[in-house]
């Protein structure tokens, strides 16, 4: 009986030792020729690139609204340009006739100036009058004999 127990124990020890000394047999890994990139790991929470000030309590939307309001207020302060009144095309013709007469006479007098003032010129026409008369003055073709203002 003792012999039988010893014999069984030896066999059990031998089996155990054999298993312990045997090389590990890992499962073969599959060969991967190509594969899609590994998906990015999902973010646990969104990235915050701007955050509200902790001291003022303003949010980015608050700042945007304030900037828009300021720009709108500035726009309201800018006066709209006054529309130019309708000009009289014949006015310029009359003014240029005066200048032509002064060129012919060689003199620009108080009477010429006063006649010019009586013509309702607009800004563009007035500029054209100066562009026409002044070269005649500087070229010594028209002598200015006004006692007061030139125009």
């Amino acid at each position: 009986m003792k012999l039988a127990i010893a014999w069984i124990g030896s066999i059990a020890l031998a089996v155990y030792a054999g298993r312990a000394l045997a090389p590990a047999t890992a499962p073969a890994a599959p060969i991967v020729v190509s594969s899609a990139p590994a998906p990015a790991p999902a973010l646990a929470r969104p990235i915050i690139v701007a955050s509200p000030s902790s001291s003022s309590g303003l949010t980015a939307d608050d700042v945007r609204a304030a900037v828009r309001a300021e720009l709108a207020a500035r726009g309201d302060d800018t006066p709209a340009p006054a529309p130019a009144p309708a000009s009289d095309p014949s006015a310029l013709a009359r003014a240029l006739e005066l200048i032509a007469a002064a060129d012919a006479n060689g003199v620009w007098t108080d009477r010429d100036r006063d006649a010019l003032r009586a013509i309702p010129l607009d800004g563009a026409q007035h500029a054209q009058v100066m562009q026409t008369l002044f070269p005649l003055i500087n070229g010594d073709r028209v002598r200015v004999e006004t006692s007061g203002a030139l125009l």
Partner: protein
Amino acid sequence: MKKNALRGLALSLVTLAAIPAYAGSKVSYRVNVTTAWAEGTLSAVRAAPDSMQQIECQVTAFPGYAPGGYCFARDAAGTTRSCWTSDPGMIATIESIQGDSYVFFQFNTTSTCTALTVRQSSANEPKAQ
């Protein structure tokens, strides 16, 4: 006694005569004109003995248009020069002219103002009435 008083008076007059009379620089620009520029000090031109000299600048505004301005000068011989501008900077310069200002203006062949100087100086004489 009388002799000493006369000596004292004479000495005082000599002393006073020796003191230099310090005064600031005074420049009087009457109208000068060339084919490219004109200049003059308003107060000095007004005080000129002749009735010919004149220098003036004027700005006129029209609704819907930029203001236009000109400068004009006439020297003692009656030679006149003028230029016009609608440049905002030059218009502002014209508007800065005061009663005793020195004014210089330069112009090109189209009589457009190409330079405009306005100067306030202690050397400018005050305008007489």
